[in-house]
């Protein structure tokens, strides 16, 4: 064989084999789906892993944090109700790098949200953030996260107030923590407190997805407020019209209760249903709403960030 023929033959072998290797590799990836993640089950102790990392624990923590995000995203995309590896992955990540604040902040969100949005385990989330505070006592944001979980998910305003008070004492803490601590200590006004927390979240985060999530919660709270207010108006109308419900919004406008057709935060008009019940036009566009849902429909949940098919 001449050199040109050898060159051509080797080039063909190289291209053919490399292309075929990509095809086979894709099949291997399918067979080993999430195998890397399952390996955390074999790690007896995150501390042992830290010792074995030979000083490269920061890099390894970044890898494990990426794995945690990937695991959460994959599970969420599947609509899974179980996130059994999430807590061990976060435990390994934060043991390898106790100062990786993103792991505490986002990890606690992943842990605390109810399935299928998260692991539905606020107790583990509180443990994670408490550990974060122990290792990073000067990070006011962690106290805020702790108070947030205690109030929103554990419905424990006392514990939330304590967390915000502790956070307010940290140097350079956001001054709003004091306001939150005081608000938590008050009785009643739960929706108002939740609104304060979400507003604080919106204002203090730089993450686009978290901002978006906060806006959705604020919109849901606004819908709940609006419908409460409209219910009061309809009850008043009913009492003044011999127990008759308004047939359309125009009845309420004509009676002077409203200036126009009321709309939800997405700009769509509320629907006045027979019997004086109020519904939103498109419930899926308003995740987290508790009120204004068609009968039998559960609170819609959004597609969370960090998920990708």
């Amino acid at each position, binding site marked *: 064989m001449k050199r040109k023929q050898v060159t051509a033959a080797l080039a063909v*072998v190289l291209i053919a084999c490399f292309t075929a290797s990509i095809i086979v590799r894709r099949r291997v990836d399918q067979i080993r789906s999430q195998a890397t993640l399952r390996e955390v089950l074999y790690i007896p102790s995150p501390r042992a892993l830290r010792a074995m990392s030979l000083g490269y624990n920061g890099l390894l923590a970044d890898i494990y944090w990426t794995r945690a995000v990937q695991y959460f995203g994959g599970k969420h995309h599947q609509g899974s109700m179980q996130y059994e590896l999430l807590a061990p992955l976060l435990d390994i990540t934060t043991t390898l790098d106790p100062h990786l604040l993103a792991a505490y902040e986002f990890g606690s969100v992943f842990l605390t949200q109810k399935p299928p949005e998260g692991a539905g385990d606020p107790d583990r989330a509180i443990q994670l953030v408490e550990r974060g505070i122990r290792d990073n006592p000067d990070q006011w944001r962690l106290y805020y996260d702790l108070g947030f979980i205690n109030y929103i998910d554990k419905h424990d305003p006392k514990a939330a107030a304590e967390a915000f008070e502790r956070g307010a004492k940290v140097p350079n803490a956001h001054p709003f923590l004091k306001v939150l601590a005081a608000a938590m200590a008050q009785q009643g006004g739960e929706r108002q407190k939740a609104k304060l927390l979400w507003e604080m979240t919106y204002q203090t985060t730089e993450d686009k997805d978290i901002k978006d999530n906060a806006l959705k919660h604020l919109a849901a709270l606004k819908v709940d407020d609006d419908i409460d207010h409209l219910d009061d108006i309809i009850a008043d109308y009913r009492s003044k019209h011999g127990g008759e419900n308004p047939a359309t919004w125009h009845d309420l406008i004509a009676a002077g209760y409203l200036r126009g057709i009321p709309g939800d935060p997405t700009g769509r008009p509320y629907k006045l249903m027979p019997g004086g019940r109020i519904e939103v036009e498109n419930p899926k566009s308003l995740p987290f709403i508790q009120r204004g849902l068609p009968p039998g429909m559960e609170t819609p949940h959004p597609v969370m960030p960090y998920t990708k098919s």
Partner: protein
Amino acid sequence: MSQRIAAIAFNTYREAVRDRVLYNLIVFALLLVGASLLFGQISIGIERIVLVNLGLSSISIFGVVIAIFIGIGLVSKEIDKRTLYTVLARPVRRWEFIVGKFFGLVGTLAVNTFFMSVGFFLALLYLKHAFEAADAFLVVAIYFIVLQFVIVTATALLFSSFSSPLLSAIFAFALFVTGSFSEDLQAFAAMAHGPTHWFATVASYLIPNISALNVISMVAHGNAISGALVWHNSLYALLYAVAAVAGAGLIFEHRNLK
């Protein structure tokens, strides 16, 4: 042609033995005996796990180090000693020389692995006094380690066909390390958007998938390895190694040896 390749391969093996490469077996044996004695006394319940993790990881690390450090010198040493010219003066094609060298080193590593495996199973027998059914998967894990060596040898040879020994060692080692995280890179690619997604995807296919060949943790816990994975990993390692050796042959065919 096959006789010429076999002759080069056999000489490569003989040279490796003459270079006392197989002396690492003594270190390995001491390590295993020490570990099995030590962990048998100081730990409860994880003696087998520790021995399997330590034994198989050692086989892998020893083999990869040998594959890289001998693989990078396969071509350059022959040029430095001027023995390459004697070989190529005979009716031997340059690509045959590369393929022969590849088989020679893979053969050396296979022999090395065989003896280390014997030592490992003896240590296991000493520790547990009997083999169990799950131990069969240890053989699969060792087979996957040999597949790692095949890929690492091929890539070391590829780099050594155009680069200096030092740079080749760095490239081959870096490729092995990144290959060990290739599944993470692929996960990153899946999560990324735009140009980052495409760059990470291309990179994840270019680097060898070493992580799929590492099942040490799984077998240490007695978990089964599917036949489909054995078959696909074998095919993948073969295709990737052939592509790398073909690349090495292609470069070496056009290399100016004057």
